[in-house]
């Protein structure tokens, strides 16, 4: 299972390592100043390596998507993908309400017909990508929405290209949708990642 590392954890770890090494450098009675300087330089280099290394690990760790809603702009749920079991949740209603909230925000705050692209709540981020006939909303709890935003947009562009025309006059019959799973699996397995 892929491990998610939060930036806060990295900072705490780096500071802790630096503090321990710095304390050792100042408390241990070195025989001469050259040895002390050498040790302080070593502490600095090790801390730098630690910070850079851990930052690279954080950068390369993927954004874990908890749920994805594939919807029409009118709030009809086409597909729902989740890695959590939430039996109390009705995904059709969730999709509708998510759209209702977007409508409310757009109508309340933006006269120019803009779109709501992100909702943040405690540990959750809901990223929303729009095209003419498709809306993709991803719920993540890993606090790295910026990494997913481009993937979501690319996936949505592909879905629009493949299914947009069909969805523009969709009757509501789910069997008419075609195999959208192929593109969604590509998104969920990280194939849209650069």
């Amino acid at each position, binding site marked *: 299972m892929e491990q998610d590392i939060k930036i806060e954890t990295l900072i705490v770890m780096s500071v802790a390592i630096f503090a321990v090494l710095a304390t050792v450098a100042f408390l241990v009675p070195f025989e001469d100043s050259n040895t002390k300087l050498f040790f302080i330089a070593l502490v600095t280099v090790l801390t730098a390596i630690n910070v850079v290394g851990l930052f690279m690990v954080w950068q390369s760790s993927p954004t874990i998507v908890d749920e994805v809603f594939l919807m029409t702009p009118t709030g009809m749920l086409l597909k729902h993908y989740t890695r959590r079991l939430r039996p109390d949740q009705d995904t*059709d*209603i969730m999709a*509708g309400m998510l759209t*209702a*909230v977007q409508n409310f925000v757009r109508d309340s705050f933006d006269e120019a017909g803009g779109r709501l692209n992100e909702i943040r709540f405690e540990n959750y981020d809901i990223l929303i990508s729009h095209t003419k006939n498709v809306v993709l909303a991803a719920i993540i709890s890993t606090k790295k929405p910026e990494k997913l935003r481009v993937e979501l947009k690319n996936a949505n562009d592909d879905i629009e290209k493949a299914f947009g025309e069909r969805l523009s006059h969709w*009757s*509501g*019959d*789910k069997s008419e949708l075609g195999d959208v799973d192929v593109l969604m699996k590509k998104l969920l397995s990280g194939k849209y990642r650069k």
Partner: protein
Amino acid sequence: MELKEILKKVVLLGDGGVGKTSLIARYVVNKFDDKYIATIGTKVSKKDIQVVRPDLIINLKLMIWDILGQKEYSKIRTSSMSGAQGLILVGDLSRPETVRSLEDFWLKEVKLSVGNIPTVIVGNKVDLLKKESMEAATLEAMGERLGYPTLLCSAKTGRNVEEIFSTLGEMLLEGVVSTAKTRKEKAPQTLAEVVDFIVQDFCAQYGDLEKAMLIVQHQFEEAGVDIRKPSKDAVLRALDGLAKAEELTLTKSVARVNLEERQRMVILSKG
């Protein structure tokens, strides 16, 4: 047996206080509090309807958008109406002005936003209606003039509430049902073919094939159906037994619809 899942967006409109929210409260899947209607202008609920045809089962999901009835909030209302495929217009029979505004205001607004869509006109609070009241007649005349079915109902007593959804559901499925009707023309003709079809249909709807076959076998034996040379009387007797079994696993209404459809097929079959 073909299975179809169809999703339709339905909007519920009418003046404030006519009972739109109460009308659906007991009959739909509600996951969100009614306060959302006042806060964001809309609340989405769901009503599942199963429509059974001889060779087709349709799971119709009506996504019901209950929209704020205050006329001033036109912007949020227009957004919520976008993409609606069905409309339930509700008036309060005890307040004549709410009945009048259905045609004068709400219908005009829907037509501007989404055009002509399948519509049911509902007169709510029929339980409060006085005998001499003209509102019911006014509403029915309006429905007739506009060509929409009209239902008088009561959210309080539950009268006719289910009928609102089933009527609209039938209207929304007209295209699908006509496809089913076309298929009906190719339906089995001889009694043996009809029996074979009924057995398959029963098993498909029952779910557990092994159990379903045991029930069929038992009911056919009880009714004296000779599977190689069945008689209509015996098959009709067996159908009653199958319907009773379906009442326990499906719903009473589905079992009844199945029974009537199967009886019709048996009676019309050759042989």
